[in-house]
């Protein structure tokens, strides 16, 4: 008996010892399934092992010091389908396998996501790929971004939704294209945010960084949205590929088409894209028609040249046109919008042991924007036509350096914005003072306004076994000036009277961020970040000449003397990843905002409004402190499961510490004002949760899916902005994708299956009413994606 016990104990401890001192080795080779050629640089990762490996010059790889157990192996290589397979590491056996990877033609045309050298971000970063975009009826990027937790968008019409991240919006966000190209929209009411000037079908991926942490990409306060468009790339031999998609949506009776031609050889390569979209008016769930039509078209040409290995130069030119875009929440519609974008990019990698990357980008954007009120009832008595020209140009230069066992990015960026525009009011109903002259009033919207910003930045990342650290700093020198901010009445008297020499300002801003991530167990990582992001006021806030630009029903006057706005934010991110269970992420954040920019009422005795039916005039001012807080969570099932489960939720709340709340009489005159503490910030979305369930059938050829979305009532509303509450609702969408072949796949579905009548909290009110723009009712859609 004693011998049995002793032997048992020996075997038990021996097994533990073997496990602790596991010497399992797993190695092999990765090859192309057709040509059997070794694939160099393929990435391999075993679940539960923090770091992966890549294949060497002969396509070989090796994992060592493995425990004797089963693992799930994930193999990735650009242009090939991923390989996911289970492997069993056994004692006394050196595993060696051949992994064959199948070519994916569509992936050959995929953009390379920029490597920021951070393995596990201590803040929230999400990347949305082209695959996701191609399966949805994406008619507008801002509309599509609403599918991401704690990202919403302000709707003023059928298209051109304006993104909001955790309650931060407009100039509080850094929205850019292709790693640095930024634009200045033409409209003072933000009919044309940056995301509206990029065609959704041109997008290959979208990166979203929440918080003031990603300081490499420009001044940032609330977050960065980086839209990556289709880029040309070199090919081993001369090749030409064609890919495109066509989409249709019922309800809108909307059609859109997009085609891309990519090709070239190792030295010279190109990408040409063209797109067209025409959408009509949609009906809401109650059958009421909503004026929402628009037409958009555009084309882009990119030419690349690789002077040497690992060096690339790309020149890009784009033209986008929008016509007759209806904005039912604004007093005007967009009649024409012509956008020209130009950029010159240089990229080099692996220059030396120290210099891992060099990037340089020079860009220019020119927007000509014309809007009018000709489709408004009051357009028959006073025809208003506004024309604005906005020019923005700049550069971004960055070097990536391997220093002190870590990685350092240093760089500089610069931009200059020039904006000018006027509104012509043709007083049709007025008697002409002289025959032949129709009474005309010309009002400046901007008067030769200019803003420049020069930035210097650095970001250092260092990794240890269990820790990863990222610190970043940034300095900005911001200058702004304009010709006089004036508004002449019919007698030639200046109603605003800000002379040109009172409009100039210079600001020096410092931002910083620091974050750490720690593996707290085999499956959990915990990240914490603190950052202070400072942004200078924008064109509208500094220089706009009396226009209803805000959420509330007031005219706004710019204030050249505004102080910068600063967001001090702390984020905590908990991540879980176990291959057999899936991946989950939970984030909480708290923001303390200083010098929050909002509107301060100007009594009518000092300044009367120029627009009919507004409540009065406000001037942009720094209102003091505000705070925002909230959370996001998400879960994704393992990729090798046949069933696909995705669950997410998000909520943000916030308030301004102290703000003036006005009281009005029956005639709309302000009769009283009082200071209110902790008034909720306007336009914060309510809590929402989403569940998506799909199933992969017939070797992933056919994937049906159902989405459920619940949005709670929003009753934390701004008293100062007279914001109404919004009711709760839930939606059901169903869809299906079918892959006919490597060249053709189809996605179809029904959004708002139950034809629910609902509105999002961030939808603006239809002009002249108290109700928000309703969302579309039931929509049947069809997307056809092809690759040749």
């Amino acid at each position, binding site marked *: 008996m004693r011998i049995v016990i002793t032997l048992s104990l020996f075997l038990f401890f021996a097994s533990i010892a073997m496990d602790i001192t596991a010497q399992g080795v797993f190695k092999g080779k990765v090859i192309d399934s057709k040509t059997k050629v070794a694939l160099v640089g393929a990435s391999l990762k075993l679940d539960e092992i923090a770091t992966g490996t890549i294949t060497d010059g002969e396509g070989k790889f090796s994992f060592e010091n493995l425990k004797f157990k089963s693992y799930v192996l994930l193999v990735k290589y650009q242009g090939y389908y991923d390989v996911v397979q289970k492997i069993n590491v056994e004692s006394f056996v050196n595993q060696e396998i051949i992994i064959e990877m199948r070519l994916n033609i569509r992936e050959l045309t995929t953009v390379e996501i920029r490597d920021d050298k951070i393995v596990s971000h201590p803040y929230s970063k999400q990347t949305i790929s082209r695959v996701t975009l191609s399966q949805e009826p994406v008619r507008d990027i801002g509309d599509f971004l609403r599918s991401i937790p704690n990202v919403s968008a302000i709707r003023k019409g059928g298209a051109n939704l304006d993104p909001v991240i955790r309650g931060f919006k407009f100039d509080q966000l850094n929205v850019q294209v292709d790693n640095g190209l930024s634009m200045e929209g033409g409209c003072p009411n933000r009919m044309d945010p940056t995301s509206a000037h990029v065609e959704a079908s041109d997008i290959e991926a979208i990166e979203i960084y929440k918080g003031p942490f990603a300081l490499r990409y420009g001044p940032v306060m609330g977050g960065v949205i980086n839209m990556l468009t289709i880029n040309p790339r070199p090919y081993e031999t001369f090749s030409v590929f064609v890919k495109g998609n*066509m989409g249709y949506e019922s309800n809108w009776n909307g059609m859109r088409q997009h085609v891309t031609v990519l090709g070239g050889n190792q030295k010279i390569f190109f990408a040409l894209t063209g797109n067209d979209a025409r959408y009509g008016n949609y009906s809401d769930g109650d059958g009421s028609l909503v004026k929402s039509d628009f037409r958009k078209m555009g084309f882009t040409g990119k030419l690349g040249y690789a002077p040497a290995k690992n060096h690339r130069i790309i020149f890009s030119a784009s033209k986008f046109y929008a016509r007759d875009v209806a904005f039912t929440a604004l007093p005007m519609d967009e009649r024409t919008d012509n956008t020209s974008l130009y950029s010159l990019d240089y990229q080099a990698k692996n220059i030396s042991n120290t210099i891992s990357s060099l990037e340089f980008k020079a860009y220019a954007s020119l927007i000509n924007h014309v809007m009018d009120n000709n*489709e408004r009832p009051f*357009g028959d008595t006073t*025809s208003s036509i506004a024309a604005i020209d906005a020019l923005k140009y700049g550069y971004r230069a960055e070097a990536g350096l391997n220093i002190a066992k870590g990685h350092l990015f240093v760089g500089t960026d610069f931009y200059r914005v020039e904006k000018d525009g006027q509104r012509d009011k043709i007083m*049709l109903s007025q008697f002409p003072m002289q025959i032949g002259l*129709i009474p005309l009033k010309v009002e400046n919207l901007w008067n030769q306004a200019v803003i420049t910003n020069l930035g210097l930045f650095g970001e250092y990342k260092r990794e240890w076994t269990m820790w990863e650290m990222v610190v970043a700093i940034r300095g900005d020198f911001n200058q702004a000036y304009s010709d006089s901010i004036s508004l002449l009445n019919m007698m030639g008297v200046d109603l605003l009277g800000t002379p040109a020499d009172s409009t100039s300002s210079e600001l020096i801003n410092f931002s910083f961020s620091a974050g750490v991530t720690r593996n707290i167990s085999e499956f959990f990582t915990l990240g914490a970040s603190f950052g202070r992001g400072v942004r200078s006021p924008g064109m509208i806030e500094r220089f706009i000449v009396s226009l209803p630009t805000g959420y509330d029903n007031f005219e706004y006057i710019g204030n050249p003397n505004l102080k910068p706005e600063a967001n001090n934010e702390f984020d905590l991110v908990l991540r879980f990843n176990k291959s057999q269970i899936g991946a989950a992420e939970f984030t909480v954040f708290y923001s303390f905002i200083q010098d929050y920019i909002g509107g301060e009422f100007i009594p009518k005795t000092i300044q009367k409004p120029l627009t009919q039916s507004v409540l009065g005039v406000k001037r942009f001012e720094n209102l003091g402190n505000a705070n925002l807080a909230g959370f996001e969570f998400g879960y994704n099932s393992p990729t090798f499961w046949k069933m696909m489960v995705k669950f997410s939720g998000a909520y943000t709340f916030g308030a301004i510490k102290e703000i003036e709340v006005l009281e009005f009489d029956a005639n709309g005159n302000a009769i009283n004002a009082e200071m209110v503490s902790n008034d909720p910030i306007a336009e914060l979305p309510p809590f929402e949760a989403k569940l998506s369930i799909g199933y992969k059938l017939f070797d992933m050829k056919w994937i049906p899916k159902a989405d459920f979305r619940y949005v709670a009532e929003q009753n934390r509303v701004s008293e100062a902005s007279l914001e109404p509450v919004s009711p709760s609702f839930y939606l059901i969408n169903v869809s299906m994708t079918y892959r006919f*072949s490597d*060249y053709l796949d189809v996605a179809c579905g029904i959004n708002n299956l139950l034809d629910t009548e609902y509105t999002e909290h961030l939808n603006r009110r239809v002009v002249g009413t108290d109700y928000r723009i309703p969302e579309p009712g039931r929509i049947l859609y069809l997307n056809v994606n*092809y690759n*040749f």
Partner: protein
Amino acid sequence: MKYIVFFVLLIIAFSSCQKDNDEVQVVYAIKGFSQPYKVVYAIGDLNKTEVFNIDPAGSTSYEWKAELQAVPGKVTYLYVESDENISNVSGFHATIFVEGKVFRRAYDYDGTRQMPNDTTFYIKQFGTIPF
């Protein structure tokens, strides 16, 4: 097979392209004056107007017309000044037609400008061409 599919998709894509041809016919017409009068009309660009002196040579059956092409959304404007009181003139009209249909029409003058020893009658019609 893939090229057949490609060309079918290409044909579908091109067939859905529509040529923009939204222009409509706009006609300004005035009938019923017997004495000289002044006409101002414009369409779209209302900064550019011309004053036309029209003499019907004593005949109320004379009809003055101006035909233009314009896209929906453009503003139409017709202004007439005369010393003649046409209130009791049967068949008088000052009309803006869009695509052959009456868009705006006046049967009488809108008002007067009183000058010493002189009264000038005026008519003003305007509106945005419907979409």
